[in-house]
């Protein structure tokens, strides 16, 4: 089993993600340089948070054209696990692996704080270790996390059960007050139709160790590792 964490110029959660996979859940992991095109040796690829290419044009808009992304798209289409966190989510939307876009936060400010997130779907390779409806405490840190898509796409996401996380109150209510950035239907994370690509704005890698006050995010990486074990067993 091998995880890969992509380094785009301007990625800044690459080391944090690498740390969680190697030290916290103890799985093999490598960095993938954005100019690489061969990703065949990986079983799961993570696009980390940060400000790829400075996010000057639009978050994730330039990263999608980097050489590695062509391979990541193929990798995902072949069923490989792809997790996009924060800027990684923005890149997944820009690259078309996930629908919709992330607009500027409702109050136009960057927001860094812990929020509550309700787990909506547990039948993805990223959320198998959670309970349905479980409320997680996860940090967000973004200026552009306001999820938006057209009505048809929204209906599709809802009917196909592809909204994986929603911002909620501590007891799991989906309210406007619990929505930090104005996202449609409090959407914090979505997956693709095949359920092997997940993008989310909160940072599970920042909530994976009790020393940091919360380890609700750890199960996301454990879910991926478990799913990979199953997959590799099935293949063998």
């Amino acid at each position, binding site marked *: 089993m091998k995880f890969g964490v992509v380094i785009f*110029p*301007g990625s*800044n*959660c690459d*080391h*944090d993600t690498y*740390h*969680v996979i190697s030290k916290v859940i103890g799985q093999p992991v490598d960095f993938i340089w954005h100019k690489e095109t061969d990703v065949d040796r990986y079983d799961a690829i993570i696009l980390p*948070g*940060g*400000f790829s*290419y*400075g*996010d*000057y044009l639009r978050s994730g808009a330039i990263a999608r054209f980097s050489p590695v992304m062509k391979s990541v798209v193929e990798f995902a289409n072949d069923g490989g696990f792809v997790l996009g966190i924060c800027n990684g989510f923005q890149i997944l939307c820009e690259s078309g692996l996930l629908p919709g876009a992330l607009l500027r936060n409702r*109050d136009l*400010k*960057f*927001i*860094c*704080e*812990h929020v509550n997130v309700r787990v909506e779907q547990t039948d993805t390779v990223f959320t198998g270790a959670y309970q349905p409806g479980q409320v997680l*405490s996860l*940090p967000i*840190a973004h*200026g552009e996390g306001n999820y938006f898509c057209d009505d048809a796409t929204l209906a599709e996401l809802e009917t196909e059960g592809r909204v994986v996380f929603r911002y909620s109150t501590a007891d799991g209510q989906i309210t406007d007050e619990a929505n930090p950035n104005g996202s449609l239907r409090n959407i914090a994370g979505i997956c693709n139709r095949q359920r092997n690509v997940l993008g989310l704005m909160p*940072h599970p*890698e*920042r909530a*994976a*160790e009790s*020393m*940091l*006050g*919360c380890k609700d995010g750890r199960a996301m990486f454990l879910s991926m590792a478990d799913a990979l074990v199953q997959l590799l067993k099935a293949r063998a």
Partner: protein
Amino acid sequence: MTITSEILDQHNITSDEYERLKQLMGREPNLTELGIFSVMWSEHCSYKSSKVHLRRLPTTGECLVQGPGENAGIVDIGDGWCAAFKIESHNHPSFIEPYQGAATGIGGILRDIFTMGARPVAAMDSLRFGPIRDEEANESNDQISAKTVARNRRIMAGVVKGLGDYGNAFGVPTVGGEVYFDPCYSLNPLVNAFALGLVRREQIFYGKAEGVNNSVIYAGAKTGRDGIHGATMASAEFDEAAMEKRPTVQVGDPFSEKLLLEACLEAMRSGAIVGIQDMGAAGLTSSSCEMGARAGNGVEINLDLVPQRETGMTAYEMMLSESQERMLIVAARGHERQVLEIFHRWDLDAVIIGKVIAEQRLRVTHNGELVADIPNLALTDEAPKYNRPMKEFAVASEDVSPKIAAAIASKSQILNPKSGKGMMTELLGYLLASPNIASKQWVYRQYDHMVRTNTVVLPGSDAAVIRVKETRRSMAMSLDCNSRYVQLNPREGAKLAVAESARNVVCSGARPLAVTNCLNFASPERPEVMWSFSEVIDGMAEACRTFGTPVTGGNVSFYNETEGRGIFPTPTIGMLGVIEDAKHITTQWFKEAGDVVLLLGATRNDLGASELLSVLTGEAAGGVPKLDLAEEKKVQEACLKAIQAGLVSSAHDCSEGGLAVALAESCFSSYGRFAIGAKLDLTEHAKLSGLADSATLLFAESPSRIVLSVKAGNVAQVKQIAAETGAAIVVIGEVGGEELTITCNGETLVADSVANLESIWSSALPQALDRPMQMAAD
């Protein structure tokens, strides 16, 4: 071109200085050379007015690896790891252009850290603005006119966004700091940026141009016309035309800086680099002559080879440009290609622009001509130094108690409407709503304070704490200065600032290790300002000696005055401490019902210069709180020993707003825990302190006090530790319930729900700042 007195004026060079310049050069300079001298001899770069005083600071200590004089100070934190840290001001640019001024402030300090080989792992900011609340507006004083108050808000919003956007994109967590408001900062906001990085002891790099004939490499962003004469601008007071100086402010690009960081660290690890320095103030000029001077060599550069953003730039413009995100590197012989390739891999410019020479000179050619040829030392060590005239002023000693009593009496109608909660409860609410005390969440929510996943104590507690992943240790850091104290009594005020920063770090469970400082003052050409500077140095030196914390460097910012009005002297202290074991990390918040609350230290009649006086009368007056350094040391020792013995649930120091504010803050909610009340009785503490007056007991700002909460079973041991250390301690109550009640001698002084108090405290800044954007009035 002949150098006329008009040209000298434009360069802020006096006729005496010009005589010295000619003597050192042995001839008349050309305009490019004059420009180079003007920036290197500016107050900002040369420390010409401060150097004679800075020598009195203690700069040696066991932990010290690198003291003042390099890009940043470095201390040993154990297990082969070192911390590089420094604070620097970007006040003048932030007034002219808040967003870019602040952004390039954090950009500059981050480069100072990674140029030493250290990866930046934490940032903090000390910010000061004029009043931001409309209700404080008063047209009779233009420092607080409605227009100025609106402008203060715009400056604050711009500064916070600038710091956030740069630090967030770069990927350094901004973990703490301080924000203060006073009318004296209305036209002189202060932006002091602190950064800290980690480096292995054997991997530290220095800004030295070693090895004659080694190549000098320019790496990073291209040079443009921005920021020309930034250092000179920062070395003069402002007048009405200040806004015309906007082009002297640089423009920051955190993306380039992030690439530069990764490329520099990679190049350093490759072993191909001999010396490196960032191009900060005075850009290419300061980096080339300082690197040469430190190594006893010289540097020769050819400007034709410098990557340029614009065409037709003159030698003068290139040498004085302060374009951001640039580095000057001396490569090891034969490894030049390796360095260039690393930078190119990160899509950055990197070219060889010159070489190290044996003569101690800065030699610059452009279009095939020698355009500058200056002895290095003339620009650095031999720059003018002034022992400027000083004039002592009487430090304040007034007892403000009668003033406060009168103010309370006259305001009783306003302060005590129909709540029936009593005067002291009303006053506490009034203080909690004061922007100096209110929650700073509005600010730190805009900073990514968690990236790098080391932030163990989130913003809001006494000190920020980050873990060092590679060791068991953590680092605590705090920025502190109550400039009101310093204004009224410079020497004592400086001591109080050092004492508070050490106390904050101790409250988090850390042993204070070393200090960096940012000395913000008005014009050094005014004798009373210079006297207060000298007093501050002596006060700081004495306090630092007491705590055994050497000064590792810092920054002096003079001329913080506009239209003849200066700021309060503001020596911001940045204290670094080490927590030996993660299990000793302590926060200020009460943890559990049933825990016993103790107070270390005594309260005195210290209402002078207090926040209470300020919110009641708008005045900064009276004798400052009395600090006994020996007593302070005992209190800190007792606190740290109790924490290290595993006996303490929470520790919070008393500062602005006094004991009552400290107690309320300990009750407020924090991440992962709900707010919790406390029931306190100050009778015994009042007896011990010899005090009867309620306002004094609750709101006096006596230093050397720490509120502890401990498990009931630990009380005896904690008392024992305090007794052995010689610190006063009494039990003052118990944690629990939803109310904060404080009684004394059977009388209820404060009684309110914690939820209500917390709502006052947390809504003050959003109420003042989150309003529909107003159009610029100027």
